[in-house]
């Protein structure tokens, strides 16, 4: 993982713009998926609305473009996304299971249509940003965010806080009765999980320079994040890295070689994973390690 990190850090100095752009997209998915896991993998509250924070961040960037320093806006986007999560968190986190999934999806769509309405009321169908920073600057912003998201999930996964989240994922009533302040913990996880996609959205607005509301609030972004997290498996930071790289490489290969079959193959892979490998690539690696250890033990005493 450290090796991959170094490779990503030197990429802009050795590669052409196309590769750097590809690397940027990979880092974007990594940041989004790691941050999604902070809430959804740790607590089992599967959010289908992660894109709402991304969209809010992107929107904040385009409306404040050339009025404020962009780094400040990126930071502000994180704060706004976190504040939005804190605001809606208490009512939204009262429901569990499929209701939470549908509610988060609905919430993201609601915000999308509110902003669409606001944009069309002011007579803008789309916006174009001029004078955005250099690709390498954007790349390193995203690199920092991916690193931040990975560190955040690593910390949460190992901390007392994370143990509380895992406990409430397993059984919320039992966790609360054993002293876990479940409402507060869920809300903190939701807020932490929201800040990063807010900043990612702001940075990506600089990359695409062309802004339409439907694009930055596209539900496919939320769905892709979930697919990557499922493929990766586990609830440590290792899972998303595996899942993101796997799906991303697959995506790039298939787009180039078999664009028509892409969605079909992706669907088949997802079904295979859900049915046969519910613990994803991390689970597969664990099973193999255990199998090897068993074989080694068997070989040691014939």
């Amino acid at each position, binding site marked *: 993982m450290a090796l991959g990190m170094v490779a990503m850090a030197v990429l802009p100095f050795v590669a052409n713009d196309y590769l750097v752009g590809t690397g940027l997209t990979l880092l974007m998915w990594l940041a989004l998926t790691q941050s999604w896991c902070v809430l959804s993998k740790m607590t089992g509250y599967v959010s289908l609305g992660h894109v709402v924070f991304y969209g809010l961040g992107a929107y904040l960037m385009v409306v404040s473009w050339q009025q404020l320093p962009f780094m400040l806006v990126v930071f502000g986007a994180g704060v706004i996304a976190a504040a939005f999560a804190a605001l809606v968190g208490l009512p939204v986190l009262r429901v569990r299971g499929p209701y939470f999934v549908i509610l988060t999806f609905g919430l993201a769509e609601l915000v999308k249509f509110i902003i669409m309405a606001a944009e069309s009321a002011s007579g803008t169908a789309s916006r174009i940003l001029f004078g955005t920073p250099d690709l390498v600057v954007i790349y390193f912003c995203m690199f920092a965010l991916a690193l931040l998201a990975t560190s955040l999930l690593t910390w949460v996964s190992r901390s*007392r806080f994370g*143990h*509380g989240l*895992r*406990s409430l994922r*397993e*059984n919320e*009533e*039992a*966790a*609360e*009765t*054993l*002293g*876990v*302040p*479940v409402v507060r913990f869920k809300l903190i996880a939701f807020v932490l999980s929201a800040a990063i996609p807010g900043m990612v959205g702001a940075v990506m607005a600089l990359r695409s320079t062309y802004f339409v509301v439907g694009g930055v609030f596209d539900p496919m972004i939320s769905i892709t994040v979930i697919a990557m997290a499922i493929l990766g498996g586990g609830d440590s930071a290792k899972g998303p890295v595996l899942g993101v790289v796997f799906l991303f490489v697959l995506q790039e290969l298939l787009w180039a070689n078999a664009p028509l079959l892409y969605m079909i193959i992706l669907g088949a892979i997802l079904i295979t994973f859900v049915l046969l490998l519910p613990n994803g690539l991390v689970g597969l690696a664990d099973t193999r390690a255990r199998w090897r250890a068993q074989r080694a033990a068997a070989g040691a005493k014939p």
Partner: protein
Amino acid sequence: MSALLSVRGLGKRYGGLTALNDVSFDVAPGQILGVMGANGAGKTTLFSLIAGNSRPSAGEILFEDLPVVGLRPDQICRLGVARTFQIVKPFPSLTVLENLRTGAMFGHAQLRRKADADLACLRVLEEVGLLQMANRRASTLTLSGQKRLEIARCVATGARLVLLDEVMAGLTPGEVAQMIATLRHLQASRGLTLLVIEHVMRALMELCGRILVLHHGELIAEGSPTQIGENEKVLSVYFGAHA
């Protein structure tokens, strides 16, 4: 020293249904108090009210002279009260040790560092006979094992008062005998106070110094196992009209 737990005029209504009505009793520190009664007598409701899982409609509950009505379950746990659930609620995909760690880290003990928490948890596991299972996933335990796990989690919180809801139901006679020995041991080694709901009458008679009898939400009798065994009201409730 005053009572560890004091329940005064406790009542709970669900709409028109009275689950518990005007129940009062005290529990002295170190006591093992049994709670018996037919299904629907209000035993589990009593536990839910004490542990904060639901709010009473009337009355008050004092733990170490502190009113706990209105506090959340996690706050009550931090004060030193823990409960098991009649239908076990383990954290199935976590290991047995991780199950206990939650109690140790977040309960009354507040062992925030993982190393401290795990050390305390391993001691508890040894006392309840689950040490060999420490790294097994909780879902792989037998029912008897899961009941022990529930108790171990409560003890790991560092609670002073533990509410045990039918921890012997569904166990074989041999397992019941073991469980009684374990509970006696825990009570002695950790100075626990236990409130025990049980249908296994022999176990209750053997374990408890004092027994409460609930019937249709009312406290109808209170006394030593012998007194309860001879109580007219209890006999008529349990065996029909006593000629």
